[in-house]
């Protein structure tokens, strides 16, 4: 294990005291330290939102990109240099709202990246509007009469979209969360870690207490993580109890293993810029 201080950023997090995202940051640091990933080989990519500020708070390479576009940025970086460990962090609005399309496509590609979503069921940074995971009838500034849409179910969505590692954690249980993240990073292929990360300022319903009363660990129930059918069933559980832990885990070839260029082994970033058969290339046009 590497020292946790190796990942300490000069910048102190500016999240509200008590924000769930602190727990996620600590768990991530714990996970990469356990895995002994050198900060120089770690790239943390995010979108925009309170949660997406995370790359600034960890000492590692980072890309704090646009709202909803973290996954394509991470995809490009990973395809250019598969030697990097790429972790994407962001919020529910970022990943399940504006960036939903990229989320689904990244999963069906089984790109070897880890996606941590700080799901607070609200838009935190923009001061409290409904999010795609807000519970039905949830009253917010943008839904004074209560939301009337069904929430997105990210776990179910991931299961049917081809993600090969699907987990849910709770930032109130950082030790368990760190394990989930660590396994997610180690996992070869797309790993989703959806995290209940309470927004103490704008979401007064889905609080720490709310989750403490409801969550239970799948692992404690003799659950089989290779059973997709069971995983789908579990993904729909919410009342009265909510499962956390690994829902599903499987091995499939990753995108990097299948891509005809990456398969050859040399990371594109280390490949020579010049072409080996210039004459042959030019003669194609004659």
């Amino acid at each position, binding site marked *: 294990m590497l020292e946790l201080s190796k990942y300490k950023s*000069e*910048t102190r997090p*500016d999240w509200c005291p008590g924000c769930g995202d602190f727990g996620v940051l600590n768990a991530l640091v714990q996970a990469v330290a356990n895995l002994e990933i050198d*900060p*120089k*080989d770690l*790239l*943390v*990519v995010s979108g*925009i939102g309170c949660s997406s*500020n995370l*790359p*600034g708070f960890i*000492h*590692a*390479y*980072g*890309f*704090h*990109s*646009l709202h*909803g*576009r973290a*996954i*394509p*940025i*991470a*995809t*490009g*970086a*990973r*395809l*250019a*240099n598969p*030697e*990097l460990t790429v972790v994407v962090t962001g919020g529910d609005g970022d990943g399940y709202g504006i960036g939903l*399309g*990229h989320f689904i*496509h990244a999963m069906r590609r089984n790109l070897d990246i880890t996606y941590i979503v700080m799901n607070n069921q609200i838009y935190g940074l923009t001061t409290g509007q409904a999010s795609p995971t807000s519970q039905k009838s949830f009253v917010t500034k943008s839904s004074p009469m209560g939301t009337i849409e069904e929430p997105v179910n990210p776990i179910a969505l991931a299961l049917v979209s081809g993600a090969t590692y699907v987990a849910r954690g709770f930032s109130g249980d950082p030790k368990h969360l760190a394990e989930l993240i660590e396994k997610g990073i180690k996992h070869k292929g797309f790993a989703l870690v959806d995290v209940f990360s309470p927004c103490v300022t704008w979401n007064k319903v889905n609080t720490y207490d709310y989750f403490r009363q409801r969550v239970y660990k799948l692992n404690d129930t003799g659950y089989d993580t290779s059973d997709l059918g069971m995983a789908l069933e579990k993904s729909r559980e919410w009342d009265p109890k909510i499962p956390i832990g690994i829902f599903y885990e499987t091995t499939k070839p990753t995108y990097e293993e299948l*891509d*005809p*260029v*990456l398969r*050859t082994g*040399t990371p*594109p*970033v280390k*490949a*020579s*810029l*010049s*072409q080996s*058969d*210039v*004459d042959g*290339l*030019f003669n194609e*046009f*004659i």
Partner: protein
Amino acid sequence: MFARTCSRSGFHCYGLNSYQSAIRGGHVWFQVRGSEQKVKSHGDNVDILIALNSESADIHAPFVSPGGVIIYDKDRVKFSGNLLSQKARALPMPLGQISRKFDKNPIMQNTVALGAALYLLGLDFKVFETVIGDTFGKKKESVITANIQAATSGYEYAKSNFSQLEVTAKPPSNPRPKMLMTGNQAICLGAVMAGCKFYAAYPMTPASGLLHWMAAHATRCGVVVKQAEDELAVINMGIGAAHAGVRAMVGTSGGGFSLMVEALGLAGMTETPIVIVESQRAGPSTGLPTKTEQGDLNMMLGASQGDFPRIVLSPLTVEDAYYATIEAFNLAERFQCPVILASDLLLSEHIETVDSLSKDVLIDRGEWANSTQQQPFLRYRVTETGISPRAIPGNPGTIFVAASDEHDESGVVISDVLAGIPKYVAERKKQMDKRMRKLEVARTQMPPPKVYGPQEADITIVCWGSTFGVVSEVVDTFGKTDGIRVNAIAFRNIWPFNAEKAEPLLKSAKKVLDVECNYSAQLARLIRAETGFEIKDRLLKYDGEPIYPYEVIGKIREVTSRNA
């Protein structure tokens, strides 16, 4: 295949496919012009028209030049001949009958007619055979044989029944085979020669040819090619790849570019080098997907919120597309900003012979930070040129976060709790000034617009991008024969606009005519904004078709005769 036969025989040629956004049906034609000299545009008239249906015969017969011919199927095509000019000949042939002998597929009629055309022009049949062999090389041997036999029959039929054209294709003095390629292919070749390692795209005419070529050459050239889910993903993947350190390019048309707009600013803000090919087609909206226009200049110059440096190049010819692409990669890395290559359907999709392309490619990867610098690493260090030495993930000692939010020299975001604090108000301005300084430095490095033709002219044509093709042809031909002296100023390094170099050229011209393929004279507007010089005479075309030489000549006559 006909164009390839010309280029392999050492002729220059220029070919244009005209089609519609339908997979089958519609009026489709392909036009090729060949010459011993360089061919710069599609031209006005045709010498040999091959009409496979009555509609084609009727539409194109009036453009057959005196001494020219129309070849058509005598059984299927109803053609009265009265649309032909005097001295043009109608040559009915049993195209269908002959072709059915070799294949059920009526497409073989093309080959029969091409065989006849080869005879009429006196082209070398042997060369055509090699072209057939290569074109169908991947198919069955029988396909090649059938095609060669069909072409031979067409050739023989023409030989026994018709006389050759008055002007036949004499073997050129330098019969060295020439390269034949589209603008899109020239861009791709330039990209891989420049060391591009990542290409992402979402299919969109007329940029799809880039994706097809890149995908077909991915393993051979070591380029990771990604067809993404949409153009938002495309450009962000490109930026991610560039951030990780490779030379990255993305390609699209106006509609896809519209989706890329927010990320264009992200590349500007995070100072990530990326090359974006914007192959314009007729807009607005979905517009005319298979028709050409130069209507996106305003968008390329103005897209995305806020001020940030960007560079816009508009290659003038197929050959130039190769060089401009290489330059685009160098500029992107030198100035760490997005570079837009403005192509259009005409440039992207027409085929043209190029004499030679240099295989010696100069690569400039810009300024890099070494790892022994003091901490924290100042990724966005304020410098005199505005260029901050960069570093990439994986490199020890240069850890930083690239942020779309405003940041200080070390990359720390100053948009949240630090915003408004006097120190950071100043910091914001410093970063803005630093980024924009890069644009000012780039401006001084931009070459002057290309002056083409004689120094002294009665009229000077201003143009940009692919329109240079037809304009330069008019300068070469009409400008040398008619007594009216014509030259051209072609804008290729469009942004940052080098007014200092452009203004004297414009001011010293006797008369200036702006020729563009758009409604609102977008280049003329830019010139006026940057220099105050107003071009009142304009030839603006926006019906989807490229500009023809006769249209430019007509306009030159009109403008020069007025108060002359």
